[in-house]
């Protein structure tokens, strides 16, 4: 009963945020002259209306889920990983190149590419963690800035040494991976691929990790009060290193499944332009870093985007309506985030005065 009540109260805030988001969207829609209800109905159809739309929503959500899970793991341990984008891009390019140049059968290439993608993302994140542990470089800043290096480096790889020269168009992209190394599609003719299943399984695994393991316990406590963790003998540096490594590996995996499951090559800018990493961050914030909640929020945010595409096809409301709703969401959620941050700061100050 008590627990049920707690779960419910933790849902109230995101639900209010959603309501306000849709309210803001309604105002924007009414400006275009389209009836509001009709517009939202079109949006729903565009996102979930039939198997095709449903599977494309889920396909779009796949990298967002994985990114969100990685970010939430870091958040739960009290560390910021704003570098998911760079980790994802490096993972993607590493996976693409491994699948292209690894000798062996298709399945060997596939597995090697997935491993390479996770390792690349993980190591990139580890670099920031190491700088924090060794030189006290603030993670918030280092992870954010490492994004630029990663994106530009990946861009360089596919414009210079590994550029696809077979096609007629002079795009900055790698060659296409052979079909044997692709992630299988879940339904013939639909875009949804095995990466989605992987993402859901990982979400469940993370939930179990947090709830039932020694490491999960130490991670949560480190996030809730690092001094208490230190006092209790938890090795915080180890927790941070492991969390950042996993967080980066999941971001790398997000890039990997996009390459192996839907694009079959690394195309410069194809992962950064849709803002997957930032949508993943939003899913995490919306779900307060709960892995299963993050998964649901990621699907929702993906649906918002695919739904808006449907809306644009059938009415004169432009695609950008999803940005309006998202922006209102961000505003509201970050308000809470800032509020709790300020509250904590204030409490720390008060506690300091009592001593």
């Amino acid at each position, binding site marked *: 009963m008590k627990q049920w009540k707690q779960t419910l109260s933790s849902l109230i805030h995101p639900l209010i945020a959603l309501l306000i988001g849709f309210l803001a969207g309604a105002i924007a829609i009414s400006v275009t002259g389209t009836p509001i209800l009709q517009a939202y109905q079109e949006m729903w159809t565009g996102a979930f209306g039939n198997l095709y739309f449903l599977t494309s929503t889920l396909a779009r959500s796949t990298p967002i889920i994985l990114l969100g899970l990685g970010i939430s793991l870091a958040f739960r341990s009290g560390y910021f990983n704003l570098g998911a984008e760079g980790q994802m891009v490096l993972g993607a390019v590493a996976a693409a190149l491994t699948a292209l140049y690894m000798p062996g059968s298709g399945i060997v290439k596939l597995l090697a590419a997935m491993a390479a993608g996770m390792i690349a993302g993980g190591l990139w994140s580890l670099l920031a963690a190491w700088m924090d542990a060794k030189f006290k470089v603030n993670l918030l800043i280092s992870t954010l800035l490492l994004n630029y290096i990663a994106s530009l480096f990946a861009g360089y790889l596919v414009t210079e040494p590994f550029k696809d020269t077979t096609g007629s168009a002079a795009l900055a992209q790698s060659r296409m991976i052979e079909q044997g190394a692709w992630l299988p599609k879940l339904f013939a003719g639909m875009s949804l691929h095995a990466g989605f299943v992987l993402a859901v399984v990982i979400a469940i695994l993370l939930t179990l990790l947090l709830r039932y393991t020694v490491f999960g316990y130490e991670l949560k*406590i480190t996030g809730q*009060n690092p001094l208490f963790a230190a006092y*209790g003998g938890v090795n915080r540096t180890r927790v941070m290193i492991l969390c950042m490594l996993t967080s980066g590996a999941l971001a790398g995996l997000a890039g990997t499944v996009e390459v192996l499951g839907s694009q079959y090559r690394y195309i410069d800018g194809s992962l950064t332009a849709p803002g997957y990493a930032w949508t993943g961050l939003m899913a995490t914030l919306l779900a307060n870093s709960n892995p299963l909640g993050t998964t649901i929020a990621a699907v929702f945010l993906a649906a918002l985007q695919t739904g808006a595409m449907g809306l644009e096809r059938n009415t004169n409301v432009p695609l950008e309506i999803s940005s309006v709703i998202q922006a209102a969401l961000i505003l509201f959620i970050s308000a809470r985030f800032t509020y709790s941050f300020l509250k904590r700061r204030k409490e720390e100050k008060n506690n300091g005065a009592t001593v």
Partner: protein
Amino acid sequence: METILEMERITKKYGQFTANQEISFALREGEIHAIVGENGAGKTTLMRILYGMEQPTSGTIRIHGAEKRFANPAEAIDSGIGMVHQHFMLFPSRTIAENIVIGNEPRKSIWFDRKQAIAQVGALAERFRLPIAPGQKVGDCPLGTQQRVEILKVLYNGAKIIILDEPTAVLTPLEVKELLITLRGLAEQGKSIILITHKLHEVMEVADRITVLRNGRVTGQLEASQTTVEEVSRLMVGRELDGIRRETQQAGQPLLQVNRLFIRGKKGKPLLDHVSFHVRSGEIVGIAGISGNGQSELVQALTGLLPVDEGTVLLQGKEITNRSVKQIREAGLAHIPEDRYLWGTAKEASVKDNAIMGHHRLKEFQRGGILRQRKLDQLVTGWINSFAIKTSSLANKAQNLSGGNLQKVIVAREIGHATPFLLACEPTRGVDIGAMEFIHQQLMDKRNRGEAVLLVSSELSEIMTLSDRILVMFEGKVVGELNAETATEEQISLLMAGGKQP
């Protein structure tokens, strides 16, 4: 004596919860009236109502017989009520005079008249015999002086009724003595004083009358001269307190040996200056000292939270100097931290998650990295029963527990480690009398089992009740060792303030 203030049948409800239930009390002119009660008894709520920070659900306030209603503190101040808060509200970078006159500054046309301010404040301090230097910066003053500034601020605003909220919590024993003398002086000059506290010895020393609150009700109104500490504490707690008895017991072998521990400070003054002592099995060694004289650093060094520059620490003959917290704990140390919110708990986490810290690593409670939840639940439920911890469930967040209950969780956890050595820091700070007695008994039981306890406390009475030997720290050094049987409070106070051992 004339009655200056009456609070009649004051009731304050927060939803279902009744913080004050028909509380009536009268304050006479020129008396010191103590309001005592455990945490949560309703003292603070009652004073917030009087000071206009809260509105009563029902009941009336009369000053000199005239009914008053205070919508905010400014109106209360206008009626001659002043409050000295527990946490000082001063600007450390400004002078004493500036802090006192703020809000009501003397002016020369539109300019602030600093000379006049200093003169007025000086005269005020002279009149009420509160020695201060008006031109000094508040940040440079010791806490005792800062408190005098707070009192002067209230007097400057023309207060006839002065409320002091736990005024001695932050003071050294000598400063406490001075404060009590000051309060008597103010009362003699016709000021009426309401003293909120839970330190009964101070109450008996200074108060004329005592109102005791328990669970939001008045359980007694007494003349201080006709009552005893025992009677007041019985009214506060609602039952007889047994008191702690220390049976004589032969101490065993040294269990903890600290040799010339040294930590360099940032400003050239060492934080720990070659500290040496030992704790034997079957004894409690108390470390007395005013906060900030190296006790925190000593504790952090012993527990592995702060690296030391020189010296060694041996626990059960094994060197643990500069080892990790985990290694030191495995070597046989448990630790009740001095600040339960900062170090001792994660308040967002559940009671269970807070209680299992350290235990979660033991073979008994995990298998291959998977926690054995059922066994952990049993462990914590056992403590909740045996320590009488009030919580709605294991999943309840720690921040919902009262200070005393949370402290019991910490004590249960650390005593539950069943280590040969326990480092107990401020084990009863901010805890009510009932919980305090319970925790003291736990520490005493541990000693009687032949285990060793190092007790670090700024509460002298705690040190004197529990310890077999007493060490006094001053400016990072151990400046004296006393036998608890023969030591007097005066001796210890003197050493704490940096005096020589007599």
